[in-house]
């Protein structure tokens, strides 16, 4: 059995805000493993402890209890940092430096040689469409550009493990696609990726395994295969708003009927599709379109959070 790249065993973190203030249990008894080449997504509502988990993992804060292992051993400072690349949520970079200077610094402290450093800077800035802005001070960058610059900073030394905290935050659709493609490329290269996100569609498409963190506890873990099995069985049809008199007939179809902003969403097992399609035709209700399984992930997420709250 191969050793996990990252293991968190019964990790807890309690913050003491000060005298006369209640202690905050940010992470409670968290156990998870991320295997080599695996993409693990940690999802959870705001304040669930996702970023704290990452900071504990990076050694920025000390866990109150539990153990963190890197390839089966406690992480050794220096060696561990050489193997990881980290992007914090909304990174704040040095205002008066240019991206090139920042990346040169990153390469130097990570022990990347001069020629290799130059090559990586050109390659990454090209991929993230920052070549034109390489020699501009970072204070002139937009929020999305700073996010992409932060990704360059995280990946410059070609780490084996990439830790991303809300990598899509502040990105426009084009920026999101760029980052999405980059993460897919990293996945293809066999990198281990651990990331937190609120954007469930990204988590669903990128991750091999997902964990739902609620109030510091890992409430649920599901693999892509578990999730896919659940999704294959479901079809989601988007219907137009219907008259009240037709509602009982629709509800009688034994599917799950929910209101959505542009009409109704009818979910039912895939094998019932011909029967339901026939019934809708008889009722004179047209089908506007279908929804992907994304809705189901949202439902799973909301259900898990609801159960754990």
């Amino acid at each position: 059995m191969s050793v996990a790249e990252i293991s968190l065993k019964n990790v807890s973190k309690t913050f003491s805000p000060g005298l006369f203030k209640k202690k905050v249990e940010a992470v409670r008894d968290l156990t998870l493993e991320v295997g080599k080449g695996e993409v693990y997504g940690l999802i959870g509502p705001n304040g669930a402890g996702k970023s704290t988990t990452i900071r504990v993992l990076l050694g920025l804060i000390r866990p109150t209890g539990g153990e963190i292992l890197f390839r089966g051993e406690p992480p050794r400072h220096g060696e561990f940092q050489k193997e990881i690349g980290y992007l914090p949520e909304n990174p704040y970079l040095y205002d008066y430096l240019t991206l090139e200077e920042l990346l040169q610094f990153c390469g130097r402290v990570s022990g990347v040689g001069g020629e290799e450093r130059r090559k990586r800077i050109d390659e990454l800035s090209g991929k993230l469409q920052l070549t034109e802005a390489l020699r501009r001070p970072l204070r002139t960058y937009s929020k999305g550009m700073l996010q992409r610059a932060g990704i360059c900073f995280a990946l410059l030394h070609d780490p084996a493990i990439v830790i991303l905290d809300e990598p899509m935050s502040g990105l426009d659709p084009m920026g999101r696609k760029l980052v999405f493609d980059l993460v897919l490329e990293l996945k293809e290269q066999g990198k281990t990726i651990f990331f937190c996100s609120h954007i469930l569609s990204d988590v669903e498409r990128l991750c091999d395994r997902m964990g739902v963190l609620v109030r510091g506890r890992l409430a649920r873990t599901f693999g892509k295969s578990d999730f896919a099995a659940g999704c294959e069985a479901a079809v989601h049809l988007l219907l137009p708003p219907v008259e009240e008199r037709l509602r009982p007939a629709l509800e009688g179809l034994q599917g799950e009927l929910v209101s959505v902003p542009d009409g109704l969403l009818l979910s039912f097992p895939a094998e019932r599709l011909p029967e339901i399609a026939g019934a809708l035709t008889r009722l004179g209700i047209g089908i506007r379109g279908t929804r992907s399984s994304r809705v189901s992930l949202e439902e799973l997420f909301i259900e898990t959070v609801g159960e754990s709250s």
Partner: protein
Amino acid sequence: MNRVWALSVITYKEGIRNRSLFGILAFALFVLGLNISVAGFFMREVGKVTVDMNLSALTFSGLLLVFFVALHLMAKDIDKKTIQLVFSKPLSRGEYILGKYLGILFFVVVSLLALAVFSIATVSLVRGLYPNYFAGFSWPIFFTAGCFVLVQLAVLCAILILFSTVTTSSFASLIFTVCVYLVGVTIEDVLFYIQSGFRTEAISPVVQEVVKVVSYILPNFSMWDFKLEAAHGLAIGAERIGLGLGYAAVYIVVLLALATLFFQRREFN
């Protein structure tokens, strides 16, 4: 050492490009210009006033550089959480402290050297206009006093680094550093007053002891103040220079070691 150097280079660049620097340099140039225009009012004292005003302008500008630019070079890293990015790289906390200190020091030295050029020009000009009143003036003493302005600032930067490692806000670091500086420049006079027979009112023994303890803990900035000697052209002995440099070096090493110790225990959430 390569990592320390890399961090000090970016710290220096971040400082030297800060726009506040231009304001501080403009202020210093204004004071130096004022010196030229009002020099004639002082007649026989023109030499002393010129030297004193130049060294004071350098000191005050240096203080502004430390309090308003250098402060942010470290405190902003912590406030804005940039430090989390930096510590995700193979850089130890001790290396970070040393790199930041050296970067801040380079920044202060380069900024002050630029001002020193204007200061030398000012003194030369006033000396050329009133050669009779610069009889006791000596360039080596002036330069020595100028170098000790840098030594004062080097110690102050180390104090700033120490407070940045223990406080959670840059404003608190600023207040503590300013307080230590104010106590440091006056402690010798206060101690002298307490121990002398000139005082008219009784001072409680507790206060006297507290002042004595404080004088041992906090740096005595008057050890590095040679304005008086430079203004009057009084020679500065090698032993005073050696003692001053040694005192500063010991202080800086102790302060940075303490800063590293505190920083290693600090959490960055």
